[in-house]
């Protein structure tokens, strides 16, 4: 049976019954001659390699695109349920089964609003559709009842921790006087240290604390053991920067909501204690410029 051989000197192939001593075409000696595999194609050729890569990539791309689009609805539903679970945790509903989340959420959340930084309500917007990264440009607010049945506003917050983003939900009374519950979560804080802000033990410290002091939001987180006021909450030992991040997020975050609320004084939402503009500070006030004492509690005495 004739076999195929290739000569590496002249590059020609030829047939012979057995390994020849020299190439019949160019005369090169046996060391240049090697047998050609009769079966299959050359898997080391350039054309083959490129075609192989191209076909493989296209096949895999279609497969992944199909899997991704087939599973998308289920994944989106999970993300939504997880967000609802977090909001419920701020209302002190914790450890709830996944299947009950939807019903509980619908039961407790009564209304949602989205405010602009000027305090104007965006018509027809659902606070739930506002993504965490948009907070600061939009202010989503949930009017809800806590597990104990008290009316509350749930304020979504975002901040920055040691390694990555933080976010949270704080439930406050309608006049922003008192915290009713809080939930915090993080992207990538240190497990066992910064990550403890996700635990109920840390979050439950916020319950019943006052939010405001001297007309401003004062609620914050301080180093463990150094809190001096009711509005200062103990941080996590060993996670100073994460605790600071939570404190900063709560302090500036809630203040932004108060500002937005007070600017939009004429919308129908209940108000936190805004500094009302006092009559005596306006030039057209009847008692402006008179001796001290004419102004009583911001208004001219005789009016």
């Amino acid at each position: 049976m004739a076999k195929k051989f290739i000569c590496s000197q002249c590059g020609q192939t030829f047939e012979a019954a057995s390994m020849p001593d020299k190439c019949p075409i160019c005369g090169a000696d046996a060391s240049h001659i090697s047998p050609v595999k009769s079966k299959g194609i050359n898997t080391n050729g350039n054309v083959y390699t490129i075609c192989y890569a191209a076909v493989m990539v296209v096949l895999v791309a279609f497969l992944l695109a199909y899997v991704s689009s087939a599973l998308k609805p289920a994944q989106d539903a999970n993300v939504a349920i997880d967000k609802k679970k977090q909001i419920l945790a701020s209302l002190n509903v914790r450890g709830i089964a996944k299947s009950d989340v939807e019903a509980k959420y619908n039961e407790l959340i009564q209304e949602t609003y989205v405010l602009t930084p000027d305090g104007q309500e965006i018509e027809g917007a659902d606070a739930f559709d506002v993504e965490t990264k948009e907070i600061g440009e939009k202010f989503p607010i949930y009017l809800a009842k806590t597990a104990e049945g008290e009316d509350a506003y749930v304020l979504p917050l975002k901040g920055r921790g040691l390694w990555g983003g933080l976010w949270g939900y704080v439930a406050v009374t309608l006049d922003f006087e008192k915290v009713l519950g809080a939930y915090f979560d993080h992207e990538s804080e240190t497990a066992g240290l910064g990550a403890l802000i996700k635990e109920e033990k840390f979050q439950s410290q916020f319950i019943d604390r006052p939010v405001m002091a001297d007309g401003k939001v004062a609620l914050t987180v301080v180093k463990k053991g150094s809190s001096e006021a009711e509005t200062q909450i103990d941080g996590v030992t060993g996670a100073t920067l994460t605790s600071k991040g939570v404190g900063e997020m709560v302090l500036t975050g809630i203040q932004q909501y108060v500002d937005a609320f007070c600017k939009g004084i004429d919308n129908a939402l209940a108000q936190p204690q805004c500094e009302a503009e006092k009559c005596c500070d306006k030039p057209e006030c009847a008692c402006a410029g008179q001796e001290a004492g004419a102004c009583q509690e911001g208004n001219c005495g005789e009016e």
Partner: protein
Amino acid sequence: MSMFSKANKEALTSPLNLNNPVVVQVLGICSALAVTAQLEPAIVMGLSVTIITAFSNLIISLIRKTIPNRIRIIVQLVVVAALVTIVSQVLKAFAYDVSVQLSVYVGLIITNCILMGRLEAFAMMNKPWPSFLDGIGNGIGYAIILIIVGFFRELLGAGTLLGFQVVPQWCYDHGYVNNGMMTMPAMSLILVGCVIWAHRAYNKDLQ
């Protein structure tokens, strides 16, 4: 060759003990540190790696004769990456809490040395069925170590197992404290070290 010939059995069982990928070959350590703070993610991670190793071994073994030698690592990576992406998507759709816990580590299975090691060392030169068994064996060998480490870290670090409280309140009342160190990644290195110690002490020929 029968389905469970001696050679096939060897492919399946040797990674469980004498050729264990973690404690003998010392592969896949980084994910072993990262996901073992609790038992549940450790189990899911072990399961995911088992499935991915088994099927990537199977697929690579099936197409091993067609793979151009010069791009074989790329082909292996594409197969592994595609499988990992599918597993990660499935977890997100059906086990969302676990996928949040595992976060980036599922994606990092792609770079798990166990996978590439087995593909290069076994699947490229063996038939599909033994390759599949080898993948399952190595995945389970990896999972066993993860589960042992996860068991001790969760038990000693949080007093729970799979989220259930197992250390009774009585102990806490009498001054027992959870060891917070156990929740730190460094402790899993020490635990893996202890496992290797015990394993070598038992198997004299590995010393």
